[in-house]
């Protein structure tokens, strides 16, 4: 799997330049961003102080 060699990277602008499903870098960045987002959400709910009633 060559993975994104046929796509001209100079054609991608803005958000799509770093997060896309065509280039290897874009795919890796998207996966990392998704993991980071869910990691932050889990961390937030773990560390959130429990409200006492």
């Amino acid at each position: 799997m060559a993975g994104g060699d046929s796509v001209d990277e100079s054609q991608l602008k803005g958000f799509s330049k770093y997060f896309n499903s065509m280039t290897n870098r874009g795919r890796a960045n998207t996966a990392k961003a998704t993991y980071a987002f869910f990691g932050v959400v889990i961390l937030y709910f773990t560390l959130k102080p429990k409200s006492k009633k």
Partner: protein
Amino acid sequence: MMNNLFSIFDPSTNIFNLPLNWISTFIGLMFIPYSFWFIPNRHFMLWNFISNKLHNEFKTLLGPNSTSGSTFIFISLFFFIFFNNFLGLFPYIFTSTSHLNISLSLSLTLWLSFMLYGWINNTQHMFIHMIPQGTPMVLMPFMVLIETISNIIRPGTLAVRLTANMIAGHLLITLLSSTGINMPNYLLIILIFIQILLLILESAVSIIQAYVITILSTLYSSETN
């Protein structure tokens, strides 16, 4: 006597509480041919023929970047599982691959080693594999989750697929044969015919399941490189 439906799979051969039935796992070793003379015999030629076919299949899947000799482990895995599956069809031979402890030991070890190697040595490559190329923008986060989950359940699916197939086949044969005790002769002939067909099916399933688990392991290995 069958206490419950699955008691036929319970290990029962023992001396001084040592479960000796697991020794059947090694019966397959007796089928590996000896090269005593320089001119190979038919057994040796058959073994080489199958090994070469498997080697060519796996070499294609592993790709040009694979280390030479990587196919050996998968060929050994194929023969191990095939012999255990097939010999279990014979009377009084214990089918060790119908137990999760054998299948899970194989699949979990392989999967864990692939994951550890892949994530430590080729981290960027592993992240790239989380999204298939050409996924629509909207679906990308979901694909990451789906691929992650499918990655995590791989050892389970590999093991359970093999175990369930072996159990299902043997259970079907046992259930049908248990109805034959109080059966009139004219129905018994039909039952025996059905049992023969089932045995042929189970022989095919034993080869196919060994092949499937090996091919999938090869694919998972090729993804890490």
